[in-house]
C-alpha cells in the first residue's frame, strides 16, 4: 500500500513538475542559418552552452541548405522573420540594411566592447556609422602546394618565407616542362578566379586599390588596373586549361593527384585535399608572393556573420545570444570545431593545426588590411560582371581590351560619376 501510494505521489509530482516546466514557457529566440554538417554541429554545441548559461531562453535553429538560403532569406525576412539570420558582412548585407530588414546592433557592439575585441571586422560590419553584423569566424586564403608535385618536377619547395613572384613564375616554367599544371582552379562557379585576381590586385597595388576597384571608384582602363592584368597574363599560360568546365572540387582532385602544383584557395579546401589523400607531410601553405616591392601585405579572409532582423519577436534575448557569439570563449570553441579562425582577438587557435596556425600568423601580420573577397566587397551585380571578365581573361587573354571596355561601361552605369 505504502509503496503504491509513494509511487503514485512520485508520479503526480513528476507530472506536476513537467507541466510546470511547460507552463513556465521559455523565452524563444529563433535563428535561421545555412550550415554544412560540421559547422552545424559546432553551432548546436554553441547553442547548448548558451542555453546552459541562460536556462530561461530556448534557441530554435532552422537550418537551410547553402544554395537555397540565398533565395530563402529574401522571403523570410519580409514574410516571416526569425530573430537572427546568418549572412555576410560588407556589401553583401547592404541591400537588407537599406531595405530596413536588418536591425542596428550598435548597442551590442558598444556594451560588450566589441570595437576592441573585434577590431579587424569593424569596417566590414558597419554601414553609415552603425553596426549591423556580428562576425564570428573567418578563414585565410593563400597558396596551397603539393610537395609531391615539386618533387616530381625537381623543384625546390618554398621555405617558410615563401618565394618571390619571379621565382614563382620561373618555377611554373619548370612545372610546365614536367607536364604539371603550375596553378589549378575550377571556375564553373567563377569565384575561384576572383581569388586569384584579388591577390594579384592586392599584391600589385595594395588594399586600398582593391577596395576602390570593388567600390567602382577606379577605372578598369587605368594603368593600375592594367598592371594587375599584366601580372594575370604572366600567370595565365600556367593555369589548368579547361578550368571553365570544371568545379573547384574537380580541380582539387587534379591538385591532390599531383597533376597540379599550386591551388589559390581558402582554408576550407584543406578538408577536401585531405579527403583526397593528402597529409600535413605533402600539403603545404604559403602566402601569395609579393609582386610590387614594399606594398604592405594585405590578405583575403571572408568573414561570416549573424544579424538581428528588424522583425525580431524577441530582440532582447537575441542580443544576448549575439553578444555570446561575439565572445572570445564561444569563438575559440566554435572555430576549433570547424577548423577556421576566430575574429575575436582574445580567442585562441589550435597550435597543432599547421594550416590554421599559418593562417593566423598570416592574418595577424597582414599590415595592409583584410579584404573580404571580391564578391563580398563589390555590389552583387558588379561582382558578377567582374568575375565574368576575370574568367574570360583566363580563357581568352587576347580579349583584354574588350573585357576592360565592357567592365568600364558597367562601372560607369552602376556608379554614375
Amino acid at each position, binding site marked *: 500500500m505504502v509503496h503504491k501510494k509513494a509511487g503514485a505521489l512520485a508520479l503526480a509530482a513528476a507530472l506536476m513538475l513537467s507541466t510546470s516546466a511547460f507552463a513556465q514557457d521559455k523565452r524563444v529566440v529563433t535563428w535561421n542559418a545555412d550550415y554544412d554538417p560540421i559547422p552545424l554541429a559546432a553551432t548546436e554545441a554553441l547553442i547548448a552552452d548558451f542555453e546552459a548559461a541562460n536556462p530561461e531562453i530556448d534557441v530554435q535553429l532552422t537550418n537551410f*541548405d547553402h544554395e537555397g538560403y540565398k533565395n530563402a532569406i529574401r522571403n523570410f525576412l519580409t514574410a516571416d522573420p526569425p530573430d537572427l539570420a546568418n549572412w555576410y558582412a560588407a556589401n553583401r548585407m547592404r541591400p537588407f540594411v537599406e531595405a530596413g530588414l536588418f536591425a542596428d546592433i550598435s548597442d551590442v557592439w558598444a556594451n560588450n566592447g566589441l570595437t576592441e575585441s573585434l577590431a579587424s571586422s569593424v569596417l566590414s560590419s558597419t554601414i553609415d556609422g552603425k553596426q549591423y553584423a556580428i562576425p564570428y569566424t573567418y578563414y585565410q586564403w593563400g597558396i596551397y602546394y603539393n610537395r609531391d608535385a615539386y618533387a616530381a618536377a625537381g623543384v625546390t619547395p618554398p621555405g617558410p618565407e615563401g618565394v618571390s613572384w619571379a621565382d614563382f613564375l620561373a618555377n611554373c616554367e619548370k612545372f610546365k616542362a614536367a607536364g604539371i599544371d603550375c596553378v589549378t582552379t575550377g571556375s564553373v562557379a567563377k569565384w575561384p578566379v576572383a581569388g586569384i585576381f584579388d591577390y594579384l590586385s592586392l599584391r600589385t597595388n595594395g588594399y586600398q586599390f582593391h577596395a576602390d576597384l570593388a567600390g567602382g571608384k577606379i577605372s578598369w582602363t587605368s594603368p593600375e588596373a592594367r598592371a594587375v592584368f599584366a601580372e594575370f597574363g604572366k600567370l595565365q599560360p600556367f593555369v589548368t586549361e579547361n578550368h571553365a568546365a570544371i568545379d573547384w572540387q574537380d580541380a582539387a582532385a587534379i591538385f591532390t593527384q599531383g597533376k597540379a602544383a599550386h591551388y589559390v584557395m581558402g582554408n576550407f579546401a584543406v578538408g577536401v585535399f585531405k579527403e583526397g589523400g593528402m597529409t600535413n607531410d605533402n600539403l603545404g601553405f604559403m602566402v601569395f608572393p609579393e609582386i610590387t616591392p614594399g606594398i604592405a601585405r594585405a590578405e583575403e579572409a571572408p568573414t561570416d556573420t549573424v544579424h538581428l532582423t528588424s522583425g525580431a519577436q524577441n530582440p532582447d534575448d537575441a542580443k544576448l545570444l549575439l553578444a555570446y557569439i561575439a565572445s572570445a570563449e564561444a569563438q575559440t570553441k566554435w572555430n576549433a570545431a570547424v577548423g577556421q579562425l576566430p575574429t575575436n582577438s582574445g580567442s585562441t587557435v589550435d597550435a597543432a593545426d599547421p594550416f590554421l596556425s599559418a593562417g593566423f600568423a598570416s592574418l595577424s601580420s597582414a599590415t595592409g588590411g583584410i579584404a573580404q573577397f571580391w564578391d563580398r566587397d563589390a555590389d552583387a551585380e558588379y561582382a558578377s560582371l567582374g568575375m565574368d571578365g576575370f574568367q574570360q581573361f583566363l580563357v581568352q587573354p587576347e580579349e583584354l581590351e574588350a573585357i576592360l571596355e565592357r567592365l568600364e561601361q558597367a562601372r560607369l552605369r552602376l556608379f554614375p560619376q
Partner: protein
Amino acid sequence: MFPRPIQQSSTGAQWLYSIALPVALLLWLFPLLGVALTSLRPASDLAQGNYFGMPSGIAWENYIYIFTETPIGQYMVNSLWVTIPTVIGAVSLSLMTGFALAVYGFRANILVFFMFVAGNFVPFQILMVPVRDMTLQLGMYDTWYGLALFHIAFQTGFCTLFMRNFIKALPFELIEAARVEGVTEWRIFWYIVLPLMRPAIAALSVLVFTFIWNDFFWATVLTQGVDSQPITAGLSSLNGQWIAQWHLVSAGSILAALPPVAMFFLMQKHFIAGLTLGAVK
C-alpha cells in the same frame, strides 16, 4: 505507304536494314546507355580512371547509397505530391472548359479559346516574378500546393485545346437529342459526354504527368527545400554536392527518369495520341 516497304526490296537491302536498325538505335541511345552503365559502376572504378572499360563489379550500392544517404526518396515523393493533384486538377478543369467551348456557340467562344491556346505558349519568364510574388503573399511558397496550383492553371491551356477538339469530334447529334429530351446541360456533360471522354482523359493524364514530373523551372522558382522540392530541382542541387561523383549523378538521373518512362511504356498509345494531336487532319 511511304517509303516503299522494305519487304519489296532486294534481300541485300533487307539484310542491310535489319543491321542498320539496331546499330542506329545503339548510336541514338549511346549517351543514355553510358549513363546507365556508369550508375552501376563502383566508385573505385571512377577513382582509378576506369570510365569506360569493364566495370570491376556491379554496384547496386550506388542506388542504395542515394536512397539512404540523400533525400532523393523524399524528392520523388514531393514530385508525386505535385504531379498527381495537377493531373487531376488540370484534367477536371479542362473537361469543363473544353465542353463549354466545344458545345456552345456563344459570341466570345473563339476569343476565349484562342486565349487559352495562346497562354499555353507564353514564355515562363513573363509569369515568373508575379507568380512567385503572389505565391509568397498567399503563404504558399515552398509548398506542394503552391506549385501544383500554378501547374493546374497553366496546363489548363493546353488541356482545353485538347479537350475542346476531342469533344468537337464527338457526334453532336447525341447532345441535340438529349436536349430535345429535356436533359439539363449539366447532366448532358456528366452522363453523355464524360463517359465518351475516357481516351482523352487517359491521354492527357499521361502527358500532364510527364510534363509536370519533368518540370524544372517552376520547381526552382516556387520551392526551395528538401521538404517540398520535386525531383528535378532536387537532382540539380544534389548534383552540386556530388561533384566528380558521376556514379551517383548517373544513378540519380536514372531514378528521376524512371516514372515518366514507365508511364510512357504503359500508356504508349494514349501518350502518342496526345502528343500528335493536330499532326493529322
